[in-house]
């Protein structure tokens, strides 16, 4: 499976062979499954933080639409779909997940690679909302936090980005170094909820 250590022996653009092994932030930690709920690592995808320069929001959004087929999101929203998503990430910031950013975007925005900076997982299942109610001080119920909504908040002590990407599927992003703590916290809450 893709989340275990693997050795890339593919040809890169420069023609050289990548001889360093990749290691997922969640190696050995996922998947985790408890009755009614599971967490899996999200497939590794390129991620870039896009921060529009002053007054460039509109041309950036237009460039984004033509290059990647989605507009720059409003606060608390995620645009796009599986494989190409733009997740609001804070004041004047959105995380482009999936496609490599079109070179034109750099005219209108600071584009900074974050593919390895954030660890991304999916929490899914019928009890996912109950699990998050143990961890996140935000109303995550479907009526208040719909598909396509996103929030920067805290999960216990962790600063996270959370997006509802499906009916019972949440994408949770945390800084890479804290991936284990994220899994520990989720797992603990999953057990508590399942035990009820």
């Amino acid at each position, binding site marked *: 499976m893709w989340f275990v250590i693997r050795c890339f022996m593919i040809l890169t653009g420069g023609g050289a062979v990548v001889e*360093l092994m990749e*290691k997922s*932030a969640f190696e050995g930690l996922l998947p985790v499954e408890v009755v009614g709920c599971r967490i899996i690592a999200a497939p590794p995808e390129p991620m870039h933080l896009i921060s529009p*320069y002053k007054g460039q929001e509109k041309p950036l959004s237009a460039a984004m639409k033509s290059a990647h087929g989605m507009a720059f999101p409003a606060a608390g929203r995620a645009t796009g779909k599986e494989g190409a998503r733009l997740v609001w990430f804070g004041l004047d910031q959105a995380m482009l997940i999936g496609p490599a950013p079109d070179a034109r975007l750099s005219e209108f925005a*600071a584009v900074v690679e974050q593919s390895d900076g954030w660890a991304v997982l999916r929490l899914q299942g019928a009890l996912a909302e109950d699990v998050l*109610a143990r961890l996140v001080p*935000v109303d995550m119920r479907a009526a208040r936090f719909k598909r396509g909504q996103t929030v920067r908040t805290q999960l216990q002590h962790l600063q996270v980005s959370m997006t509802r990407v499906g009916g019972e599927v949440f994408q949770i992003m945390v800084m890479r170094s*804290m991936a284990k703590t994220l899994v520990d916290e989720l797992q603990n809450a999953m057990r508590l909820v399942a035990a*009820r």
Partner: protein
Amino acid sequence: MRIDGKGLIDRSVTVPFAFDGQRYHGFAGDTLASALLANGVRVVGRSFKYHRPRGLLTAGSEEPNALVTVGQGSGATPNLRATTQEIYEGLEAVSQNRWPSLNFDVMAVNDLFSRFLSAGFYYKTFMWPKSFWQRVYEPIIRRSAGLGALSGEPDTARYEQAYAFCDLLVIGAGPAGLMAALTAARAGADVILADEDSRMGGRLLAETEPLDGEAAHIWVARVLDELAAMDNVRLMSRTTVTGVFDGGTYGALEQVTTHLANPAPDAPLEAFWRITAKQAVLATGALERPVAFPMNDRPGVMMAGAVRSYLNRWGVAAGQKVAVFGNNNDAHRTAHDLQEAGVEVVALIDSRANATVTGDFPLFTGAQVINTRGRKSLGEVHVQTASGVEVIEADCLAMSGGWNPTLHLSCHLGGRPVWNDSIHAFVPDPKNCAGLHVAGAAGGVFSTKGALKSGVFRAKEALKALGMKAPSMPLPVAGDAEFAITPLWQVKGRKRAWLDFANDVTTKDVELSARENLASSEHMKRFTTQGMAPDQGKNSNVGALAVLADATGRSIAATGTTTFRPPYVPVPIAATGSAGAGKGFAPERFMTSHDRSLELGAPMIEAGLWYRPSYFPRKGESTWRQACDREVAMVRGAVGVCDVSTLGKIDVQGPDAAAFLDFIYTNRMSSLKVGRVRYGLMLREDGMVMDDGTCARLGPQHFVVTTTTAAAAQVMRHMEFVLQGLRPDWDVRITSTTEQWAQFAVAGPKSRELLNGLLEVQIENDSFPFMACGEVRIKGVDARLFRISYSGEHAYEVAVPARFGAALFDLLLERAQALGGGAYGLEALNVLRIEKGFLTHAEIHGRATAFDLGMARMISPAKDCIGKVMAERPGLKGPLREQLVGLKPAGAAKLMTAGAHLFMQGGEAVSDNDQGFVTSPCYSPTLGHPIALAMLQNGRARHGEVIDIVDHLRRVRTACVVCDPVFYDPDGGRCRG
């Protein structure tokens, strides 16, 4: 004694349990209290101070007497109220505050000396000798007065904390709360109904009054069924709302498995909820208050409403011969309910001369109970009537002094209760209850009909505030009996009359407080400890104020009340803090090399939240110093590899990026060439040094700033503040990239040789000189290379995307070992930098200026920067300042310790003579003796002088020579090589 046909318990399910080791049986639906009462157990606890035998007083969470410990060892929970603890098969409860047993308690001797144990006695008595208070008297007093004890072991139970959200939170599921919840639920609002009881219904479950022509509990069940079937309603039983906080946040404690014989292993015992509600209805009902007549604390003296609860809800008669004593009509119900159930009522005593009392039992009006007899169970009640004293044989006395609205939560945001003269009780002040609508008995509406109506009315108020349309709500047919009361607070007599049963406070204590001129309610409370027990004055508060008012000649309204603060019931810290237990205390941050470092046996040291290896021990090395010395020598002589990913990395881009960096750094960054790195210093606004680090220019408008590990977040925050607050006109975007890159220092004379074995394009001194940076490819991966040095050696830092970090670390180690080097940890890193006089936050300690650190010249005179003006303040420069120096031993090498203070040689080591302190000491394997960095008054002018360093904690005094802080390679030739 059980009464056939009465109660809402399930008699088909027998539940065995134990109290103080004795085995009993109860039924499903019983509390520990109702089951003990049914089994004829009269004494359930010993009083706090006098160790008097005590029985049940109430049937609810306000119980002051029946405190028990449940469970054993580390799983024991003390001070649980028997009235709220449900029984389950195998429940083991034990009584508290008695030795050796509940029946025979040695400390009951206190009761004989009660005249000497009045309020505040210990402050007056145990004054000499002064030192004895803390060491002798207080421990003894605390041991003899008391509650249940903790096991002293870590709590093994699991707890949980959780968040919930709603439009309307209804607190309390009695008639008012049920109607409020139903009204809002039918309107489509998102409703949470929380009730502390295991079964919702409040007083409706405890009275015989019919509702809509049928037994009230049937109506309750129907309403609950309707609510439970609605998606927009959440019913939370066994959940006590304990506090009101800002922004519509409510704290609530849920008993999750405290009532279960075999809970799931992972299930929490209790959960602490933070409920955010747009509006709330306070429907918490009322608490009956005792009358302070002499000897009113005997086992068998109970609240009249509680006697009805035990009878009607649990089918238990509280006695075989019951007397009832009250000052209001409500008390009469107890006598009538008991008689109807076939229990002998020996007297109904109403203190009001004009009261209308009926019933087929002895009736007394205008009469008062003036004394009782019976040690472990009530035996006699002495009643003063107009014609004389009647002695009545009774084993239970049901008393009622009226009802106090349960208004506690209305005070949590600062509301002060107001006195209501018609019910003679405090009620919430609606002006101070923003978003909290008070319904039913909590607002002083005591009839069932009134409560139902008030529930609807308050729910409609809340719906209006929510902008929702209220449905029309037909009211069930209910009783509307008028609540008639004439105050009776105390019956004076020679003997003690209890106000606060939990803390053993009597009317005499309150009168003494008034005599001692502690006449305000707050002073009285602290002097007598009334209201400071686990029940927090729920039973005693108003009664004590009335006695104080009487003693000081004021009205109760003028006396005022102390306020109520969260929590409403005791909340285990284990529940509120459950998320912080164990590793939940703080996140752990791991570098990509973490697993490998552990494999190599490296002990980890916490740096902020990061885990960093302190050294990499090899065979034959028994101390950290041996490993550290070897690692230092390795870097100086060959090559070492160290994971430095924890250093903060901030990506700065935009048309004004260079101007921005000029503004936050003391030195100029705009003149930096692309592909070059510069060391920089940042000041705080007050002129002190905030952080140091490097700034690399990757493109004309693209920089990467590094910070120290400790200040990474602080610098990011500072930059955000500058951009948002000080220079919003600048077009700059900053992004933390700390986690994107795994970055390794490769340091030592053989560092270039190591790297050239991995890089696709070789580097040379000309193409990649000291302080160069650029993009490279290493084993097919795009990487960043910086030629910077924190060791003073020819060194690089190489950064790859974090997913390659573990593999690159392995590869670098392998190559380093082949060249006679290896990994080095934080200890060696520290020694290497001290030898070079480089700084950390030991030196940049928040009070050091650039001048102090010998870096005044780094503040560019040609431009402005943050902190520049304030760094010019008088007193921040000159010979009085403590300045960075180096220290080495004068003579034979001796111990130098961090935090040791500096004094003139031979001078007295007292604070008046203090001249500075040691910031960073180490043993330098390169120089072969200890060295240290220190801050010394006028230090730069004193190189060569001998001073003493003194460490009072470790008893060290060492003579040292002051020297330049750069001990090794002062010209810096090695890093340029």
